Structures are given as structure tokens and as C-alpha cells.
């Protein structure tokens, strides 16, 4: 396996089972420096599982992860964050009975040497973050608002702002636009563009090809634990891509195309695609 220097992160031959269910079956997946990757796939395809492995929540049964060319060992959530990976989880990962400022710094509180929380600093930072990323003008909201009392869009806003704030090299957004209004979706997409402009990378997981196509550099399609297709956006039009996705959904087949071998990962040419329909 050749190690490509242009990969910020590279997951090689990842296998993962829950009990007897094989959720990931030899997935190769990479994100380059300053690249936005759209990760598409049906419900249960394994998208969230793949990124939870990347964020140290789950450990793969088999396979390796390389960060900036370095193989990762003894991986954990804390280590992923130290490396510079931030995630907006599909489940949002918020503590609903607690305040916005507590949530923003959950798991990495700003502390003094003895481990006491610098509450003043955390609240001030939260105030700033909220204004910058959420357009925090609503009089009803403050850094002391309890997350459980907020609207779905506002909660998502907290989860996204929290991830963007730490200026990570890789930001993972797992279905960030689900349940959002049109204008809120637009805001999320502009954040993704911002990530690109700032020279950082992102993984954007969604069911909505129309959301991800405009902002992605590359689209990866996952189906039943395998990568079944990869497309550089520059080489395929939206119409063509939609057509292909329909083809996968209808027949479970997607003719192997030249465009797919551009990910920085060796693809076996004859990779067999799984049938979607019984």
C-alpha cells in the first residue's frame, strides 16, 4: 500500500462488526489537505460508524488509520481532538440539562493548573463563538440558556459552533442539515465553504446530494459497509451524479468508472458492488 503524502487522514482496510453484523467491510477512505469530501450512502450504510472510528469513539476490528502520514496507535476520543479532528455527531452529543457554555467546552474545559474551570473565560468565549457562528442576536438566548429548552436548529447551531470554534484541521459533519430550515441549511453550507477557504478539510455526511454537491470536492458513496463509488466533482455534473446514484439505488450496480481512482487510495479495479435490492 503506497502512502500518499497528500492525504491529511487515511483509513485503510477498515473492518467493524457489532455482534454478528458486519457494518464496515474493508473500507478505504481518505481526506486530502484542504479538501471537502461528501460521504453519501443509504441508511445503515455505515457512514456514522466509519466516522466514529475516525474520531476514536469506536475501535476498528481491523485496519489502520494514518494522520498526516503517521500511523495512529492507542487511539481515543481525546487523542483525535488533540490531533485536530472536530465532529458534529449525528446525535449532536449535547448535554440537554446544562447550559450552552457548559456544552461548548464539554470534555475539554478551560482549566487552571489544579483542574478548576475558568468559568469566566468559558462564558466569554462562548458568547463570542455564538455571535460569530450563530448570529447570536436572539434576546431569548444567552450563554446560560439550557440546551434542552432550545429549538432543534439552535441545538444544531451549538453543536456546529462548538466544532468550528477549535480551528481543527478536519471537521466532520454527520448529517448537519437534517431537520434544518432552508436559511439554516444555507448557513451550514456557507460554514463548509469557509472551512475550505481557511485551508482546512471537512467530511460532510448527508442523504441530500443537492446539499453536498455544491460544496464538495469529491463524493464518496458507501453501501453496506463498502465504498462503491468515488467521484471528483470536477469530472462529473450534478445530473450525471444523480443518475448514477439512482442506478445504485435501483440496481445496486454502478459501472466501474475511470473517475474513481483519484482518491489517493488504491482501489482494486474489479471491486464488486453489493446488490442493494434483494
Amino acid at each position, binding site marked *: 500500500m503506497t502512502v500518499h503524502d497528500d492525504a491529511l487522514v487515511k483509513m485503510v482496510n477498515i473492518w467493524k462488526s457489532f455482534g454478528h453484523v458486519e457494518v464496515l467491510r474493508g473500507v478505504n477512505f481518505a481526506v486530502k489537505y484542504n479538501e471537502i469530501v461528501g460521504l453519501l450512502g443509504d441508511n445503515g450504510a455505515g457512514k456514522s460508524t466509519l466516522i466514529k472510528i475516525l474520531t476514536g469513539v469506536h475501535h476498528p476490528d481491523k485496519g489502520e488509520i494514518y494522520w498526516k502520514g503517521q500511523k495512529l496507535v492507542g487511539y481515543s476520543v481525546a487523542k483525535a481532538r488533540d490531533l485536530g479532528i472536530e465532529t458534529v455527531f449525528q446525535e449532536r452529543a449535547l448535554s440537554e440539562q446544562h447550559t450552552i457554555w457548559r456544552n461548548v467546552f464539554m470534555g475539554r474545559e478551560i482549566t487552571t493548573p489544579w483542574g478548576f474551570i475558568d468559568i469566566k473565560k468559558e462564558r466569554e468565549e462562548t458568547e463570542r463563538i455564538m455571535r460569530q457562528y450563530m448570529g447570536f442576536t436572539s434576546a431569548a438566548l444567552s450563554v446560560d*440558556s439550557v440546551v434542552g429548552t432550545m429549538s432543534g436548529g439552535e441545538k444544531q447551531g451549538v453543536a456546529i459552533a462548538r466544532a468550528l470554534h477549535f480551528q481543527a484541521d478536519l471537521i466532520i459533519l454527520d448529517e448537519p442539515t437534517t431537520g434544518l430550515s432552508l436559511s439554516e441549511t444555507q448557513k451550514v453550507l456557507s460554514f463548509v465553504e469557509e472551512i475550505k477557504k481557511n485551508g482546512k478539510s471537512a467530511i460532510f455526511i448527508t442523504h441530500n446530494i443537492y446539499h453536498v454537491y455544491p460544496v464538495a470536492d469529491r463524493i464518496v458513496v458507501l453501501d453496506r459497509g463498502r465504498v462503491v463509488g468515488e467521484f471528483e466533482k470536477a469530472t462529473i455534473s450534478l445530473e450525471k451524479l444523480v443518475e448514477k446514484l439512482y442506478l445504485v439505488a435501483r440496481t445496486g450496480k454502478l459501472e466501474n468508472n475511470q473517475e474513481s481512482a483519484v482518491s489517493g487510495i488504491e482501489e482494486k479495479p474489479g471491486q464488486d458492488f453489493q446488490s442493494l435490492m434483494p
Partner: protein
Amino acid sequence: MARLKAAEYRSQLSVVFILLAIIVLFIVGSPKAFLSGDIYAAFMSTIPFSMIMALSLTLVVITGEMDLSFPSIMGFCGYIFTVVFHASGSFPLALLTCIVVGLGAGFLNGLLIVKLRLPSLVLTIGTQFFWAGLTQVLCGGLGKTLVPTKQSILYYLFVGRIGGKLPAQILWAVLIGFIIWLVLNRHRFGAHIYFTGDNPASARVMGVNVDKVKMVVFTQMGGFAAFAGVLASIEVLYFWPTLGQGYLLKTIAAVFLGGTPVEGGVGTVFGTFIGAIIIGILEAGIIAMGMSGFWTQLVYGLIIVVSIAMHSLLRRKII
């Protein structure tokens, strides 16, 4: 004003109100007893034992767990203290051994709960019987005097009477309450306790070591139960083989009275502090009012039901 804060204050305020109402009731019902200082000195000598354990148990309950074994750990550690004290003649050594054993027993609870994924409610029923049984087997149902502990300065430091009146143990309870408050509200570990109880899955993916939090919380429970066992024993200068009995429900009730919900995620040290006082004065107060001791349980029941209903209503207003 923050909505959570406001609700929390309302909830704390209401327990204080209940406490004041009870005291006023007692003063009206039995002015002679309740206008003299003596009864309050008596309260301050007996309440600290369960108060210390209630403060400690608050952390366990906030993480969404329960511990039913602390009264047995208290008893077992009281036994260890007595044995080591008589063998060595050293109060500090006996104290240290006893606390370490308590921490160990608590750690064992935590370890089994975390590693074997056992429900704490069930597991600690088991360890409760285990420690109580072990104590009985070892002491053979016999108590032992602790009068010689009076030769140690530590005796006066722990349960002496300051100025001839104020029981030292109440100061220890207040100090422990303050330390637990500090950890819970100002330290990152306290934040992790809240996150763990509120939503362990979220806490875990955000990098909170949920398992470690639970283990530490059960461990400290064992340590404070041991300390309470020493205080309760040297206060009466006798190790009773039944030490610990009668503390379980009152201590748990103090936590719930104080507004910490059984599901965890939220809760206050101050609430538990007041809850422990309420539970502690009820019994003596009811008897001082000339009612029979039979009334105590009935009144306990009423107060507990009314106050947890009140906390629940206050909470639902905000979420």
C-alpha cells in the same frame, strides 16, 4: 437570568422553605424544647453522620447511579477501625486503615458496575449483604468499647464539643459539604459528573471518561461511609455490631428531598445539605412535640412525597 440557574434556585429555596416551616411548626408545637439551644446541639451531634454520606451519595445519584451498600461499608469500616485501634493503640493508623478499606470497598463497587456493566442498584444490594455479613461473621455479633480513643487528640478534633457545646462533627460535615460543592461546581471533574449523568453517550463521544467518573464517584462514597462510621462509633465510644443500620433510607431520602432526581444529570450539594437537616430534625421534633414515635414515619413519608413532587414540577417548568 439563566433559566437553569433560576429553576435550581427555586428548587433550593423551596427546601429551605420546607425546613423553616417545619422548625416554625415545632416551635409552635413545643416552644420549650425548640426555643432552647440544647435540642439544636443534639441535632448537630447526630445529623452529621448521615449528612456526610448524603453529600457523598449526591455525586453517585447525579451520575445516574445508586449505592445501597454504604451503610454496610460504614459498619464494616467501623469494625476495622475498632480492631486496628485495639491491636495497635494508634488512632491515626486505625483511621487510615479504615478509610483505605472504605475506599477499596467503594472502588470494588465501581469496578464491577463499570467493567461488568452491572446495574448499580442490583450490584450494591449484593455488596450491601456481603459487607454486613462479613462484619457479623468477624465480630461474632459482639461490640467493643472505644473509650480509649479519648486519649487521642483526634477524638476531640472529630467529635469533641467546641466551647463545651458545639459538636465538632458538624464542622466536618460542613467542610466536606464545601469540598464536594467545590468539586461539583468549580472543577472539571464535577462537570464530568453532571455530563455523565445527563447523557453518558454524549459525554463519551465528547471525550469524557464516563467509566472513570463512575469509579471515582463510587470510591469516594466508600471513603466517606468509612469516615462516617468512625465518627458515629467514637461519638458513642462503642462499636456496635449493628453500626450502619437505619441509615440507608434516611440518607437516600435526604438526597431526593434536596432535589437531586433519581435519573441524575442535575442536583445540588446545598439541597442535600438542607435535606439531611430536615430528615434529621423530624424524628426528634415529632417526639418533642409529644406525638408518638409512630408518627415519625408517616410524617417522613408525607414530606418526602410532597417535596419530590415539588422538585419534579419545578423542573418540568423549564425543560
